[in-house]
């Protein structure tokens, strides 16, 4: 065993050279003598400890019975008030507490037993160096060399190199097999459900709460309204919660409508996309895609509650704070002859978080 690898307490090779003094005042005094505990010498104390341990095991048994009784007896809908927890499920409380006590008491009993009644005499055990001795090392290396020589791996370079090549390539099959996990992105992130809107076939804006089309005058100054697409050629009933792809569609189509005094709109282009001060922005944050839902009507700031990107809706939804990298896309809206708000084209820029292929 190469015990040299294990340093002694005072190693002069790496440490501050500690000169060997005849009598080292800092020398290891050796293992201290065992000091008996009360339970080691007083049989009555030992008996008491024994009873305490057993008591804990008995409490555990009772708690398990309590668990079973609670499971059977307590109705799952029962709510109780327990100070300071408030109104909580009686079943959850009873099951959890009884299970907790049943488990805890087994543990407490075992630990108490170990601490009071089992031997607490400390014993030393030798460590052995992890590294093998030189003889073993030489032997194993020789064996390996013999094996390697017999395989001819080192000699037959062509076999070796082609083996490495084939091993390197074969995982590619596994990677290829992942291809059908999903379709290719193509251009799908560039457009939304509003893409079918044209001046000839506009799509109405549907109020998310009332499920009704809305007029500009329905939107008060300073209010925030959420909207989704109405009927279109491919979705004659408009976007409905029952649609199979509702989640996917609403993740891109959701609109946030606000109305600002036209004079307060700082960005002329943004003003032009709106209708009499009603502006329609994508509700999906351009940072990582959370829906934006906090609006401060005095400042016209909208804030994403996930990462606090803040957009100035009176200024083309410019980012004024937070980690978003670009403004919220705005949807061009107008009204149809009956006065309902409509979109006649898709967002000019992709909604949601940035991606590599995003060009606008």
């Amino acid at each position, binding site marked *: 065993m190469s015990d040299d690898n294990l340093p002694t307490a005072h190693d002069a090779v790496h440490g501050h050279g500690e000169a060997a003094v005849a009598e080292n005042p800092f020398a290891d005094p050796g293992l201290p003598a065992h000091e008996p505990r009360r339970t080691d010498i007083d049989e009555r104390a030992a008996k008491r400890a024994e009873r305490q341990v057993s008591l804990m095991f008995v409490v555990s048994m009772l708690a398990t019975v309590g668990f079973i009784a609670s499971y059977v007896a307590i109705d799952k809908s029962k709510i109780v008030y327990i100070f300071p*927890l408030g109104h909580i499920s009686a079943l959850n409380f009873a099951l959890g507490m009884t299970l907790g006590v049943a488990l*805890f008491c087994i543990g407490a009993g075992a630990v108490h*037993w170990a601490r009071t009644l089992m031997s607490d005499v400390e014993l*030393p*055990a030798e*460590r052995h160096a992890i590294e093998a001795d030189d003889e073993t090392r030489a032997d194993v290396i020789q064996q390996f060399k013999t094996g390697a020589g017999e395989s001819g791996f080192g000699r037959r370079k062509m076999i070796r190199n082609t083996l490495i090549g084939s091993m390197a390539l074969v995982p590619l099959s596994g990677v290829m097999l992942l291809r059908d996990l999903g379709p290719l992105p193509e251009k799908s992130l560039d457009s939304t459900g509003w893409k079918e809107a044209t001046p000839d076939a506009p799509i109405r804006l549907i109020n998310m709460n009332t499920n009704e089309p809305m007029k500009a005058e329905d939107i008060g100054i300073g209010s925030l309204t959420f909207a989704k697409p109405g009927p279109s050629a491919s979705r004659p009933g408009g976007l409905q919660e029952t649609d199979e792809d509702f989640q996917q569609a609403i993740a891109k189509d959701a609109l946030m409508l606000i109305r600002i005094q036209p004079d307060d709109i700082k960005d002329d282009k943004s003003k032009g996309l709106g209708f009499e001060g009603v502006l329609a922005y994508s509700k999906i944050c351009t940072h990582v895609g959370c829906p934006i839902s906090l609006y401060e009507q005095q400042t016209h700031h909208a804030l994403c*509650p996930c990462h606090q990107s803040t957009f100035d809706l009176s200024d083309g939804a410019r980012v004024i704070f937070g980690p*978003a*990298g670009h403004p919220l896309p705005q949807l061009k809206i107008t009204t149809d002859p009956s006065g309902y708000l409509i979109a006649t084209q898709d967002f000019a820029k992709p909604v949601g978080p940035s991606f590599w292929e995003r060009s606008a």
Partner: protein
Amino acid sequence: MSSSSSAKQAAPASTRAKPANKAEAAADYLDGRLGIYSLAKSNLRKIFPDHWSFMLGEICLYTFIIIILTGVYLTLFFKPSMGEVVYNGSYAPLNGIHMSEAYASTLNISFEVRGGLLIRQIHHWAAIVFVAAMFVHMMRVFFTGAFRKPREINWIFGFLLLFLGFFDGFLGYSLPDDLLSGTGIRFMEGAILAVPLVGTYISFFLFGGEFPGTDIVPRFFTIHVLLIPGIMLGLLVAHLILVFYHKHTQWAGPGRTEKNVVGMPLMPVYMAKAGGFFFLVFGIIAAMSAIASVNPVWAYGPYRPDQVSTDAQPDWYMGFAEGLIRVMPGWEVRAWGHTLNLGVFIPLMLFPLVLVAIAVYPFIESWITGDKREHHILDRPRNAPVRTALGAAWISLYLVLLSGGGNDLIATHFHLSLNDITYFVRAGSFIVPVIVFFVTKRWCLGLQRRDKEKVLHGRETGVIKRLPHGEFVEVHAQLDPTALHKLTNHEQYEPVELPAEVDENGVARKAGVVAKTRAKLSEGYFGEGNQIPKATAEEFKEITSGHGHH
């Protein structure tokens, strides 16, 4: 061939003595098939040293077992499907609402299955405690230098367990498909989209098309219950085998050397203590789950990509990643028809780097010290001031980023400006770790000085003595040999020196960049002012012999 003669032939008798009782007979039976006596020979009375901090690793092990037990139970009831259903159950506020089967079955586990809520809560609480315990356990190993040879590889196993624990926690959080978990997945999608070149493709392959699609919950489910736990189980077993093989580290003390391990035997003391501790941990987590609600998914409602609640927070261990993404300025580069979203991509890259910084530390330190020996005696953190300061600086960075991840909660609870907190975190990520580093190092050096003082001048007794000429002095008592040994047996490294600029033949020899860096780092670790030379035996004798002894 005669069958009668072979039947008469008695089987050769075992050379082993007859077992004394049924238990011995059973053990003999198993030994004949499994070789249990050889296995148990050195392990039944294997010695474990005792220190409270050694239980931190045990908590990790036990919570992992609890997570697996409760996780299996939950899979019996959970439906990992995004198929849409209309909820019609006993939680009235959500009746008639469209939701995924995953969310509906989570509600059922919480309200219809008796004890289901408790198991869900135990599963989540145990996961939180598991990650927390891994963190603290890792800190213990770091600050005491227990990661040094021969344990560097086990440090890596532990690191991987922590990293995988993070991800499995995140995936588990995502499965119920409630509003909060869906928001977390959306965050992940946005982060993946920020990866240049392949981000969009990875996102489409992961989600089976556009976000959110209907594949993500079943896919996450398999990864959460099978793939990652399988890998973790393998790592955990390897981790424990190595702990067993290396034997435990121990603190310095009388009779404790690098070549032995002092403590109490596995049977019976550690069987009772460690086995009992499993029940203590399980019991406490069960009681916590009875009284403290975690992740009440019914209060959030089903996920819809156009809805969100405030206080959108991940579990705490993902909070620093959340902090990174919240405080990063929104840098976006657009060129040649492409968008590079640095505002998301940089945090995405920093997230693993913050963790990997800790993973590689053992290798950096052993390179600097050039120490190739095994270490089994633990360092007191004060005796490795630079290491301790680096660890403290890392923790401070972690906490600063965590406070960035909870900036909304800090703002509302302490009535602070959210923007100010974000600005503080932006600057603080760079400044705070540096301050913490220097403060911690000074603190360690101060403690080293105090140790030296105690060794040389003894401890203060509180007894004031008046000398004949009127001077008042405090009586100091010399330390006992045990304390003297404990305070002086640690080892102090010399900084590495660059080789002489000319060799023995007078030929110029240029030190490479690597050697120079190493010398610089070594000076920073062990140079003058970075450690206090410990008391030597000569100094001690000089002071304690003769006069001036008060």
